[in-house]
């Protein structure tokens, strides 16, 4: 079965550089989420998009921006990188499941490991 695709899988950047992470959701999934997992930490929600519109926002720094395109893929743009941005960045995509009151079942990609030096 198709899974969430993230590229690149590994990325090394220097401080103050810019990085772009890409996420390709599972076909027919209409919602994309971005999470950041620092070393030894739990994943933290950054931002989500539904039908190309921002649907929710978490602890995303102002230096970061994201968007979802017409083909539903999403990009997370990170500028003025700092050492503390080194983390594993997960993308998840979801579709609506009519269980209980209904919910979005999320499928996670393998992550992009960003190292800032």
């Amino acid at each position, binding site marked *: 079965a198709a899974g969430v695709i993230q590229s690149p899988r590994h990325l090394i950047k220097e401080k103050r550089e810019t990085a772009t992470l890409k996420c390709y959701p599972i076909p027919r999934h209409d*919602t994309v*989420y971005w*999470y950041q997992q620092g070393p030894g*930490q*739990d*994943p*933290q*929600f950054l931002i*989500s998009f539904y039908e190309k519109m921002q*649907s*929710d926002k*978490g602890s995303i720094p102002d230096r970061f921006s994201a968007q979802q395109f017409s083909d539903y893929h999403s990009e997370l743009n990170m500028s003025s990188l700092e050492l503390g941005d080194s983390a594993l960045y*997960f993308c*998840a995509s*979801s579709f609506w499941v009519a*269980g*209980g*009151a*209904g*919910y*979005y079942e*999320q*499928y*996670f*990609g*393998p*992550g992009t490991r960003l190292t800032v030096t």
Partner: protein
Amino acid sequence: AQSVTQLDSQVPVFEEAPVELRCNYSSSVSVYLFWYVQYPNQGLQLLLKYLSGSTLVKGINGFEAEFNKSQTSFHLRKPSVHISDTAEYFCAVMGGIGGYQKVTFGTGTKLQVIP
């Protein structure tokens, strides 16, 4: 907003012994609960979920969890662990004031299976 507390950061257990990973949640409204597993240098894989109905849910790899509303707990159990179960386990919640979309994770429990 909802939150999740995983009481143990690390749990060592001998191979073939039973294990319980503890999780408590906090929310003023109904929530959905999940357990994810993360193997070293890999992504998050859904183990099991509780949406409604039976409070005992069974997942992949022989894991199960019991939803206890009165104790606001969702502990994960396995009767006999294998070396391959060595990984980090995250309890997670969706719902409540935060909405039925984003997932809030606990801080994780590292399960170390000792041969």
